[in-house]
C-alpha cells in the first residue's frame, strides 16, 4: 500500500494532474483584472492553492527519489525483467560459453559489465539521470523556499541621508557615503526617457548597542542585495537632499528637504514645517538645444538649477515661482529663498527573509540543470541483461531514448552473437 502510494505520488501523471489544476485555476482568474496577482494569492494563501503547490513540491521530491533509487539500485535478475525490456530474444542451441561471449562483446562496446554464473548485466551511462535530478532538486528547493519567503518575509523601505543614523529593529545603521554615479550633465531629447544610472552605491556601517561599528559594507542598486547578518540590503532609489531657507521679514524657516527629482523633468512637492506652505521642486535645464525638429534640454547635474513653486495650498492657489541655482538666494513672491548645496539620499530596501538564501540556491540548481539538460540528447542509459536458464539464453536490451534505433541495434548484435538456430520471441 505504501509502495503503491509512493508510486502514485511520484508519478509523472500526478505531476500532469497538478499542473492541470494550476492551469485551470489561472484560467479562472483570467476573467478579472490583475489575473496573475490574484492567481498568486490563490496559490500561496488559500487552502486549495497551497494544496496544489505543496502537492507539486512533494511530487517532484518523490519523483527524484524514485528515479535515483531506480537508477542506482541493482537490477532484478529475472527472466521477467528481460521480457519487460524494449527487445528481447530467447536463444536455444547456444554454446556453453554464451554468457562469456556476451560479456566480452558488450565490454568491447564500452559497457560496464557484471557477470555471475547465470547472468550477464551490461550497463552504460548509469548517472545520466543527474541533469534532470539537479533540475528537479533545484525546483523543489526554489518552490519550498519561495513558499516560506512569501509568508515570513519582512520588508521595509527607508530613506537615509549621508551621515544619518537609522534604528532598525535589530541594529543601528549609518550611511557614511553615497556614490550616485551621476554624469556631469544630461541631455534629454523628445519624450523618451533615456536617463539611466549604472550603479548607485553607498557605504553602510552597522553599529552594536555600544555604538561600535562591527560591519562595513557597500550596498548597491545593481546586482544582488548585500547580506549583513542575515538581513538583505539594497538601494531602491536615489534622491536629492537640499537645505532650504525661507525668509519673510524677520521670520525664518530652515529645513532640509528630501526630494525625488530624478530623472530630470520630474517634480516633487514637500510640506514645509508649520504645515501651511508647500514647495514644489523641479530641475531646470541649463540650456535648450534644437537639432532638426528635435529639441533637447541639457541639465547640469553638478550644479543644480531648480524651478521652485511656493503655494499655500498643496494643489492650488497663491503660487509664487522662482528659478534658482543652488547656493544662491532669490525672491519668491513676498519671500526670499536660499537653496544650499545638495547632497543625496538613498532609499534602502531592508529585507529580513531567512528563506531567501535558499531561493537563490534553488535558482542556481535550476540554472545548472537547464544548462546540463541538452547533454541528455546523447547521454542516456543503455542496459543489456542476459540470463541463462535451463539451456535457454534469455537476452534483452533497453535504451532510455531513441528506442527504435536501440531495438535495431540489438538485433544486429543478436545476429553477430547468434550461432544460427534461434527461437526469437520478440517484444511487440
Amino acid at each position, binding site marked *: 500500500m505504501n509502495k503503491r502510494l509512493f508510486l502514485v505520488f511520484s508519478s509523472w501523471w500526478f505531476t500532469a494532474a497538478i499542473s492541470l489544476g494550476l492551469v485551470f485555476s*489561472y484560467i479562472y482568474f483570467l476573467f478579472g483584472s490583475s*489575473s*496573475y496577482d490574484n492567481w498568486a494569492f490563490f496559490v500561496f494563501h488559500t487552502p486549495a492553492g497551497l494544496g496544489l503547490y505543496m502537492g507539486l513540491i512533494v511530487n517532484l521530491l518523490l519523483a527524484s527519489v524514485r528515479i535515483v533509487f531506480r537508477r542506482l539500485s541493482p537490477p532484478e535478475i529475472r527472466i521477467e525483467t528481460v521480457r519487460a525490456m524494449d527487445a528481447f530474444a530467447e536463444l536455444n542451441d547456444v554454446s556453453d560459453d554464451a554468457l562469456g561471449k556476451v560479456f566480452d562483446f558488450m565490454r568491447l562496446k564500452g559497457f560496464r559489465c557484471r557477470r555471475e554464473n547465470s547472468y550477464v548485466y551490461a550497463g552504460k551511462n548509469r548517472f545520466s539521470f543527474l541533469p534532470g535530478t539537479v533540475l528537479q532538486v533545484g525546483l523543489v528547493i526554489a518552490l519550498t523556499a519561495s513558499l516560506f*519567503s512569501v509568508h515570513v518575509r519582512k520588508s521595509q523601505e527607508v530613506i537615509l541621508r549621508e551621515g544619518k543614523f537609522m534604528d532598525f529593529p535589530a541594529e543601528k545603521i549609518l550611511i557614511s557615503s553615497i556614490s550616485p554615479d551621476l554624469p556631469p550633465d544630461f541631455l534629454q531629447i*523628445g519624450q523618451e526617457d533615456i536617463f539611466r544610472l549604472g550603479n548607485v552605491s553607498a557605504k553602510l556601517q552597522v553599529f552594536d548597542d555600544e555604538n561600535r561599528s562591527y560591519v562595513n559594507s557597500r550596498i548597491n542598486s545593481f546586482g544582488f542585495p548585500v547580506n549583513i547578518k542575515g538581513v538583505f540590503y539594497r538601494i531602491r532609489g536615489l534622491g536629492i537632499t537640499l537645505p532650504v531657507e525661507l525668509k519673510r521679514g524677520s521670520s525664518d524657516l530652515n529645513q532640509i528637504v528630501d526630494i525625488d527629482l530624478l530623472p530630470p523633468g520630474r517634480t516633487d512637492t514637500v510640506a514645509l514645517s508649520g504645515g501651511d506652505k508647500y514647495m514644489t521642486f523641479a530641475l531646470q535645464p541649463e540650456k535648450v538645444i534644437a537639432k*532638426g*525638429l528635435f529639441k533637447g534640454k541639457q541639465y547640469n547635474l553638478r550644479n543644480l538649477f531648480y524651478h521652485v513653486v511656493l503655494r499655500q495650498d498643496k494643489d492650488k492657489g497663491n503660487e509664487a515661482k522662482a528659478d534658482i541655482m543652488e547656493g544662491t538666494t532669490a525672491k519668491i513672491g513676498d519671500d526670499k529663498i536660499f537653496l544650499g548645496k545638495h547632497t543625496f539620499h538613498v532609499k534602502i530596501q531592508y529585507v529580513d527573509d531567512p528563506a531567501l538564501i535558499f531561493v537563490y540556491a534553488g535558482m542556481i540548481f535550476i540554472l545548472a540543470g537547464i544548462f546540463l539538460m541538452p547533454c541528455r540528447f546523447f547521454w542516456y542509459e543503455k542496459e543489456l541483461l542476459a540470463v541463462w536458464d535451463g539451456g535457454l539464453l534469455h537476452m534483452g536490451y533497453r535504451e532510455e531514448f531513441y528506442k527504435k534505433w536501440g531495438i535495431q541495434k540489438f*538485433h544486429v548484435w543478436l545476429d553477430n552473437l547468434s550461432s544460427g538456430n534461434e527461437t*526469437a520471441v520478440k517484444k511487440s
Partner: protein
Amino acid sequence: MPDLFLTAFRESLQCSVLLALVLFYPAVWEKTLFRTSLLAGVSAAFFVGGIVGFSPSFTGNLLSNETWTFWRYVSELLIFYAGLLFAALSPSATKNREGGYLPFDVLPAALFCLGFFLFFFEARAVGFLAHDVGEMKDNLFGAFVSVLAGTATGFIPIVMLRKYLLKVPLENVFSAASLCITIGALQFAFGGVSEIEKGNILIPVQRNLGGFLDGWRRAVQSLLLISDHPFMDTAFSGLAEYIASDRTAMALTLLFVMGPPLLLLVRIFSSPDPLVGDLRGGAQKRYVVASFRKELVYQTLPVMTVIIILIILLHAVNLTLNPLYEPSPISVTEADHKGILKIPFSGDMSPHSSKEAGNSFEDKKLRKYVYFYGNEQIVFLAMLKPDGSLGVALDECEICRPPDWKSDAKGYSQRGEHLVCKYCMTPIAVSSLNKPGGCNPVPLPFTIEDNSILLRTEDVTDIYKKLQGLEKKGTHF
C-alpha cells in the same frame, strides 16, 4: 432571411465535417451504442445551444458573448490536448487498441460529450444571431425557420455521402490521438460564428501567455530582490525584459500549439519496424516492412495537415498583433499659396491645431497626404527620421508596380521603426528616406519655413508623371 440561412448552413457544414471524422471511424460506426451516443450529443448541442442562444430569458440571464467565446476556446483546447492523453495511453503510435483507450463504460459518455461540444457553442451563437436579426426585422419566426433550414441543409452532404464516406479507410490514417488533434485544429481554423466572434483562438492564447510571463517575471524579480527601476540599472533586467516580450510569448504559443502534433510525429517515426525474423522468404519480410512503413506515412497525413493549419493560424496571429500602421491620407491644397503645398509641423491641417511648433512628428509615426491633381490622387508621405530631419517622399515605389486589381498593395505602411512596402513587404529603414533607389519611396524636394513643410506643386506633379510613365519594373529615373 438569406444571411441567416447561409450562416446556419456554413456552421452546420463545418460541424458535419468534424462529425464525419468521428462518426465514420470504424470503431465508432460499427457499434450502435457509440454511434447513437455521438449523434445524441450533436442533437442535444443543437437543441440546447439553440434554445440558450435564441430564448431571451436565457440570453439575458446567462453569460455574455465574450464569456461564451472564452469557454468555446477552452473546449477546443481540451479536445486538441486530449490527443496527447490518447498518445500517452496508447502502447504504440500505429496500433489502435482493440478495446479503445478508455474503459468501455465511459466511452459512450465521452462520445456524447464530444458530439455535444462539437456543435454547442456554434448553435448558441447562431441562435443568438437569429434572435438578434429576428428582433431587428420584427420577424422572429422567419429567423427561426431560416436557421432551421440552414442547419438541416448543412447536414445534407454528410447524409447523402455516407455510403462513400464509410468506404474511406479512416482507421488507416487516424489514430485516436491524431483524430483528436485534427478535430481540435479544424475547430481552431473554423473559429466561431464570425458574425459575432472575430479573431482566432491563438490571439488570446498569446496575449494571456504574455500576461502570465510578465506577471511571473515581476514576481520572480521581486522575490530575488532584483526588481526593475525606472532609471537605475538592475541585474538581469535585459533578460527579464526579453522574457516578458512579445517575442517570447509568440515562441511559447508556438511551442504550446505545435508541441502535440510534433510529439505525435516523433512518436510515429520512432515506431520500430515489425519483427520479421520468423517469416520465411525475403520477399514476405520486405512486404511486411514496406506495408508497415506505408501505414506510417498515412498516419502522418493528418498530423502534417494539422501542422499546416497551425502555421497559417500563427501567421494570422503575428499579423494581427503586429499590424501595419497606415494612416488615412490628409488632403492638401494650394490654398493661399499658389504653386506651393504647405504642411504645418503639427501634421494637423486644421487651422485650429493646438499643437505647438516643435512637437510635430515627434511621435515618429508615418503621415500621409493626398493632393488632387485633375482626376488623379497624388499620395505622398512625411516622417521624422532618427537624426531629427524630415523625410518626404511619394507614396510609391520605383520598382514595385502592383497591378490595378491590387491597387491597395501600392505604397508604404509603417511597422515599428521601418517603412514596409505593401507589395513586396520589404522593410525600409526610416533613416534612408529622401534617398532614391532600391525599394525606397521616391523622394520629393521640400523646404522648411515658418514651422511648415513646403513643396512646390510643380515638383510633385512632375515627379509623379515621370513615375507613372515608367512602364517596366526596375526602370530608374
